[in-house]
């Protein structure tokens, strides 16, 4: 599905994607745009998010925890990590979460195509 435009639709599950989908749904519900146009918006979104994260974001993050579940399917890693401590390198404060799910697609596939 994502192969048609080289970009993953992974980020649609983040808050930015969910809110965009919601907004598009509203407009479709009000019959102000067609679903096809909404799909185009979402594919643009996939591209823009990937590019922006690559180019505009410089922050580095480290995290530690205990791995509860791991899964590798269709080139997608899914980790469920418990008792995670996140640390940004720009300042020393940490963020703690008891459970975090990581969904990660291969970075290579993007570059190859």
């Amino acid at each position, binding site marked *: 599905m994502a192969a048609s435009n080289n970009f993953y639709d992974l980020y649609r599950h983040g808050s930015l994607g969910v809110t965009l989908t919601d907004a598009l749904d509203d407009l479709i519900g009000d019959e102000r745009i067609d679903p096809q146009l909404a799909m185009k918006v979402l594919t643009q979104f996939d591209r823009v998010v990937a590019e922006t994260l690559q180019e505009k974001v410089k922050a580095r993050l480290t995290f530690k925890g205990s791995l509860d579940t791991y899964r590798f399917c269709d080139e997608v890693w899914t980790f469920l990590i418990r008792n995670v401590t996140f640390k940004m390198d720009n300042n020393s404060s940490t963020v703690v*979460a008891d459970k975090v*799910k990581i969904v990660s697609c291969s970075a290579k596939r993007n570059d190859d195509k």
Partner: protein
Amino acid sequence: MSNQNVGAVYDIIIQEVINSVRVDFEETGTEEGVLDDLKKKWQIKLSQMNVATFPWDPKPELPPQQSTSAAASAAAAQAAATPVASYTQSTLSPQVSAQPISLPGHGLPHSNGLPIKQEAGLARTDPSVKQEPGLDGQAGQQNYALHPQQQQHLQNLQQQHQQRPGQVPQQLSPQQQQQQQYRQGLANAMQQQRMQAQGQHIAPQNGLPAAQHDGATAYEGILMQRDANGNPVELSRVEIDNMLHAQILARGKQMEGGGLMLPLKQATRNRGIASKRDADASHVSAHDGGDDELKDEDLDDDAINSDLDDPNDDKDDDDDEDDGGHMMLCMYDKVQRVKNKWKCTLKDGVLTVNGREYVFHKATGEYEW
């Protein structure tokens, strides 16, 4: 861990997406206004998720409101505290000073004009009077006032009084009692106040007592939310209002979608799906029987029927996603494992933790299985 750049990054993304689909909108003949609407809706919905501060948010009235209410309650607490303080000074200190003043006041005329014997007589009656428990404060004070003027003999007496610890306190007791009572009252009042203050502190957490304070001690929030660092934070009244409003809107939409405002055909179609789902659910429960497995295979030719297909697994996955939305979406460069130690290099990610969102260019994670 700050997420200040998230707002800016998201703003860039929104601008870029809107700009890049403008052509598509024009091609399909959609009005320009719709695109603006899309952008606005998107931004509003994103703001409602409250995952970061966004540049398009109106300079939030919420933090100042919170701070003013905090300042107001602090001022109220101070105002409540200062009267007590001034009360202590104005009422207590005269009482304390009254004693030393009254001693010379009574003493001078006596020592100058009146014969000592009379004094002595009076003084001698003192002990008997003093021992009476029913003394009022003034008598005690007078009696006590007499002592200093008595010479030799009376000084001895005074010394005796002082040496007899049981008496002096008794003699002073009415006043002391008054003072003590007053002090106790004060202490009680202060304790009550402190308790109230503590109550105020506790109230937002358990939510119930807050209803009792509807006066000047303004409570903005009774809902708690975890902030970026995982600490519980009160939501302000306005935030709660917003949440309620959003909920009600969502409900309304659900009702519309559920068939109230829909053409009959669509409504029944929805119901058809729902009933089909119900049927599925009942089918799933029947699956527990074990004898139905053949039927299962008949129904779904593609099913592998391994444990991985267990419908309960899906439920578990849902649970994972429901856990407060703690999620990281990213790309991986490398995932390595040595025995039970995992190391991975991730990039271009969005992380949502404790209701806050972070973006990163690169991330390294180490964890043990």
